[in-house]
């Protein structure tokens, strides 16, 4: 508790506070512009943090994460285009309500829901992280291996499109991570005689290529897409107390769903929003009105996607396992700034661990203030023509890829990953599992091989140690889920045929 309070005190100093403010503001703007996402801006900002103090760098990135997740609701409501994938469910009710002449009310519900979701999930982040880290310190290599495997399976299973394509993306990411130095033995592998590959494919060129540049190419494809506009007004943007009371159960339920889904390793805010929206529709008295401009729908989606942000930070700072693609970038930021992600973060660098937690809450409060005060201005910025944004983004990507080790090879690798990522998007293969696979596969491999060295080459502890066994069972169930559900559906269909008159 003392550590957390001192983290709050230190973050209220002018410089860290300014970084949080800038992070939230930039995050909201980027989140509001369709085609640009939080992952993009955080990946682009990462190289700029090289010169910064590690705490300031982390809080800036966390603030961008919070801001970008919330900013997505502005374009979802006013343009019928989710600014970020996590706002995709907000479109269903936000835009119809705005089109009916109540844009302020739709935005107000979304903003307040984002704030409440962020606050409730922050309580879990602050309360769960320190004790979880204490438990996670006792995890051996087999537990970490099983958790990594589960995260890989979950992200592949819940990513958009077919599970097979999600798995292919995950394995491709894993394959890319295997090139270069084998961390367990120190030997070089899979370089096929290319000396430049000895150091492997570095994090930033992979991230910038697959996440940012591939999206730039996709944006260029859709550059002629017409935009629907709804005039913004600030009337009714402040949610009434009676509305807040009426949405109480929805807010708490959606926060819990979002937080829980965020905590599950490998799953992010988009799934949280979908799950929460579906549950809210089932429980709401106005379930039939969902999709026509119902407040309950906006609240469910926006509460959950913001709650998932803090939820996803839990596995990141307690176990070093990223909860979403953005968390992969935050993991990269921790490594670049010489901080060890995982349970030891609380022991070795408590100021960083508690700084992240405190920054998440401050960013959430600033998000509320900025969104309520500046949404009409931000709404104007989101109509900026993409033609003017894409060249600077490519230049920033080049600087980011080059600056990691001052060699053009990384720039070419980034261009290669951009084309690969673009091809993946074209055939409906999600890029999220690729990034998660790239990050988690080396962790899984090193931990498994370390475990084997510790246990004289025995695989048995994988299933005899309870935590490891439990996560392996989840991974196996996730992998078999499509098959099981198909068998179940077939059996049900046969039963219906038998009972048919």
């Amino acid at each position, binding site marked *: 508790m003392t550590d957390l309070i001192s983290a709050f005190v230190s973050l209220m100093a002018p410089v860290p506070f300014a970084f949080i403010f800038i992070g939230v503001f930039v995050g909201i703007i980027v989140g509001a512009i369709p085609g640009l996402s939080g992952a993009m801006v955080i990946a682009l900002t990462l*190289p700029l943090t*090289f*010169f910064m103090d590690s705490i300031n760098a982390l809080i800036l990135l966390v603030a961008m994460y919070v801001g970008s997740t919330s900013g997505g609701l502005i374009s979802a409501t006013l343009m019928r285009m989710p600014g970020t994938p996590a706002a995709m469910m907000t479109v269903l009710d936000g835009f119809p309500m705005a089109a009916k002449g109540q844009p302020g009310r739709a935005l107000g519900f979304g903003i307040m829901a984002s704030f409440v979701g962020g606050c409730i999930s922050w309580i879990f982040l602050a309360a769960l992280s320190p004790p979880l880290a204490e438990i996670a310190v006792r995890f051996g290599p087999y537990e970490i291996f099983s958790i990594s495997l589960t995260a890989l399976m979950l992200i592949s299973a819940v990513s958009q499109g*077919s599970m*097979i*394509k999600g*798995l*292919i993306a995950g*394995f*491709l990411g*894993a*394959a890319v991570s*295997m090139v270069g130095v*084998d961390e*367990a*033995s120190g*030997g070089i*592998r*899979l370089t*096929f005689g290319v000396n430049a590959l000895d150091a492997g494919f570095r994090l930033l060129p992979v991230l910038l290529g697959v996440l940012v540049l591939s999206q*730039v*190419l996709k944006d*260029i*494809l*859709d*550059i*002629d*897409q*017409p935009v629907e506009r709804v005039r913004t007004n600030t009337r009714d943007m402040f949610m009434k107390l009676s509305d807040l009371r009426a949405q109480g159960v929805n807010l708490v339920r959606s926060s819990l769903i979002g937080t829980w889904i965020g905590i599950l390793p490998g799953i992010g805010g988009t799934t949280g929003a979908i799950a929460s929206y579906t549950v809210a529709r089932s429980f709401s008295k106005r379930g039939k009105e969902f999709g026509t401009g119902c407040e309950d729908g906006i609240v469910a989606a926006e509460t959950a996607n913001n709650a998932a942000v803090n939820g996803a930070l839990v596995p990141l700072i307690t176990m070093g396992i990223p909860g979403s693609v953005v968390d992969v970038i935050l993991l990269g930021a921790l490594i670049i700034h010489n901080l060890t992600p995982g349970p030891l973060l609380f022991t070795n660098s408590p100021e960083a661990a508690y700084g992240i937690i405190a920054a998440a809450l401050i960013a959430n409060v600033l998000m509320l203030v900025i969104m309520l005060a500046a949404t009409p201005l931000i709404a104007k910025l989101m109509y900026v*023509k*993409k*033609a*003017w944004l*894409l*060249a*600077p983004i*490519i*230049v920033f990507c*080049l*600087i980011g890829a*080059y*600056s990691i080790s*001052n060699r*053009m090879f990384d*720039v*070419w690798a980034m*261009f290669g990953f951009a*084309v690969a990522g*673009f*091809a993946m998007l*074209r*055939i409906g*293969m999600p890029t999220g599992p690729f990034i998660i696979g790239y990050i988690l*596969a080396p962790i899984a*491999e090193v931990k*498994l*091989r370390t475990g*084997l*060295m510790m246990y004289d*080459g025995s695989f048995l502890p994988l299933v005899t140690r309870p935590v490891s066994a439990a996560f392996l069972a989840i991974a196996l169930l996730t992998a078999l889920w499509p098959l099981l559900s198909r068998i179940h559906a077939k059996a049900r269909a046969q039963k219906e045929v038998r009972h048919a008159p």
Partner: protein
Amino acid sequence: MKRFLKSRDPAALVTESAAMVVVIVLGAALVAGSQVLPEPVYEPVGPAAFPFWAGIALIILAIAAFGEALAAGTRPLPDAPQEQMPAPPLRERKDLAFLTIAVTALYGLAMDAAGLSFPVATSLFSFSLIVLLAGRKPKTLFLAALVALILGFGLQAVFMQIFYIDLPS
């Protein structure tokens, strides 16, 4: 072959099949690359096992994805009346996407092979790309030139003088 010809969108099926062939080739490369790695010494897995099994998994999954695409592509069209079918998507600007890839590759080559400095290469690249995407009206040309110069020379100054980050030179 018949299934290909009957499919709803042969072009998409060909694209997807080509992508899966690439995945199979990558999987095969992983398997081949793992065969030349040393035997395990300290534990039974060694450096070759993960690349080998990742390669095998990629090959199997690519074949499964191909089967999935074929099954989906040859499924009969729904009986919905024409007016209920979704509107055709807007024309995609594939020409612009390919030109962007070409201009970006030239940008990299200009610095890597032709030895052009960062500010000059960046200014030229930014101007070309903005004009390509935003049009060639006089006002656009003027603004594009201004933005290009700021990006080229401004970023050089900011990154090298303030952030102490080296740029390609």
